[in-house]
């Protein structure tokens, strides 16, 4: 059971902001990595916003998550501008390298693979985002090489 007291502090920091729920959830997720039931219950209690409403918000926006994710989040775009530049082949190679489908986390917990909608980097399509970094002009080989780099870094840190 994580220490939930930090939630109270986060909520307090927004006392001068009108309707700050989305900001609160962002900061809470940054602190705890996810928005679990117990976390949301605490937010509801402290903000006096109904839990159902908070859960509705937490599950509406794609940057929020109610389940645990891998160490790195890989977000691939397959919107039309990336698609016509070969994003499907890139995605297929990433899937087979990681051994997961979109929406899944690798068995070792190092990567979660997700779709993203357009990131506005279409002049260097196809693109993907790993955590907060964006990578453009991808080829299947280049994409896999980038992920291998992340994996190497991960093991050296451990």
């Amino acid at each position, binding site marked *: 059971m994580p220490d939930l007291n930090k939630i109270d502090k986060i909520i307090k920091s927004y006392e001068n902001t009108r309707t700050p729920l989305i900001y609160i959830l962002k900061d809470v997720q940054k602190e705890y990595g996810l928005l679990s039931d117990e976390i949301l219950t605490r937010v509801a209690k402290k903000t006096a916003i109904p839990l159902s409403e908070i859960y*509705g918000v937490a599950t509406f926006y794609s940057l929020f998550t109610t389940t645990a994710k891998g160490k790195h989040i890989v977000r691939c775009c397959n919107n039309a501008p990336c698609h016509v530049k070969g994003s499907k082949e890139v995605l297929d190679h990433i899937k087979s390298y990681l051994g997961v489908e979109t929406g899944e986390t690798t068995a070792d917990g190092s990567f979660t693979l997700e779709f*993203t909608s357009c990131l506005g980097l279409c002049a260097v399509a196809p693109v993907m985002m790993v955590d907060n970094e964006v990578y453009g002009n991808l080829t299947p080989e280049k994409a896999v090489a980038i992920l291998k780099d992340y994996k190497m870094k991960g093991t050296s840190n451990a």
Partner: protein
Amino acid sequence: MHRIHILIAMDAHTISQGARSIKDAMSRELALAGLADEVRVVETGSLGIYDKGVVLVVFPDGVYYVGVKMEDVSEIISEHLIKGRIVERLHYLDIPTEEATMGDKSARIGKQVRVVLKNAGVIDPESIEEYIAHDGYEALGKALTEMKPEQVMEEVKASGMQGRGGAFFPTGVKWGFAAREKSDEKYIICNADEGEPGTFKDRLILEGDPHAVIEGMALAGFAVGAHQGYVYIRGEYRMSINRMQKAIEQARKHGLLGKNIFGSSFSFDLDIREGAGAYICGEETALIESIEGKRGEPRNKPPFPPSVGLWGKPTIVNNVETLANVPQIILKGAKWYRSMGTENSPGTKVFTMVGNINNPGLIEVPMGITLREIIYDIGHGIPEGKEFLLAQLGGTTGGILTREHLDLPLAVDSLRNAGAGMGSGALLVVDDSQCIVDLVKTFVEFFVHESCGICTLCREGNGRLLEILERMSDGKGKQDDLRLMEELANAMLRGAFCGLGQAAPIPILGCLRYFRSEFEQHLQGACRAGKCELHAENEAAA
């Protein structure tokens, strides 16, 4: 005093190509060479050159270098800065110029005009002094000291500017709706929730010239009687958020936001609100719901936001590009604005060219330019000798244009007649190696992902369309499928709750209209482009 300035484009495109480390290396090596006092390295917004790696310009020479790699840094310093010899290997000549005139057909880049983008790539966006040096905040000063709010509104009305977010509603008219409301508080919101696939103009305006947006918002606030504004930026645009935050703080420090601006009785302040990943929040009432800390689901209209908006108060929601146009309209006048573009679509438009095109990127051109001019003159045509198949204008909700539309002038009325619209200004070019069914599938996948789910037609309709398309590309399509798709798409067009659901079927119907035979071919088990599963199965069988 610095003898030389090096401008390095620092936008999300170039950063993804390593611009940050090039800048650091440049500063480091300049210091080592003892040139730190003579040469200043300045970060700027997009320089209008894409797909060419890291871009920098050496001033006063005006020499553009592209594809700059770490190992090139010392060469540029020793050759260009010390010996005065241009590094030809990296030299780029096809540069956009500010002076180019509209009518000049001889110059390729001459078709571009820079109004909204006049400062992007020219000034350091993190310096308010540089913005001020380029006539920045002069329009606000003029308005607050010489004009009445009604005069500001009338000028914008007379300019005929239409909202650049995609709906092209006359901006001055919208302001008028809020101005006549009696209320203790009104709000100005800048819609920077840019998410339409293929669009990144707002990001580059925010990253390249954030003060123009602030000034436009303050002018809007003065015109309608609002004292508080919000810039709603999508959460994924970290750099835009940071630049805008810095710009707001600078403007406050200079007394250009806050109380009694320019010694007048007008007070106006701004805050940023971040999105959390939802395309639908680009719809203005969904955006308002999101600022109110709720799910971004659209509201019933009417009432429209200029009457009942944020926290129930009169609210103007304008797009980034719209607001960035306002200072120049006030400074140079409605007549000047009308000298560009066409009678019914005055001004310029910022487009983002993406897809199968040689020279992708951001351009600003007068309204009324043709598709052919954009694709072949400015965009340098289709790569690898392939043929033009179609263009989709305005993002994934945009209409489909084919070869027969290449000479159509791109203006609001002419596009409407062709069943399309300018939308967000994204221009997706698709070559003939692409499969139509596969392409339409990506459109629908996007809508399935982004439908907010409150209305059945959009939530279920897109899901069922995807099912049909998937079985079609698996070779299991049924003869009745095309009729079914059309029926469903037409029902969504008429019956969905908001603009997203109503627009989702537009590109699908466009493709069914212009490329029907290709869908029929799939029903018979063949894919012209060889992109579908059924093609692979056919080959395996053969």
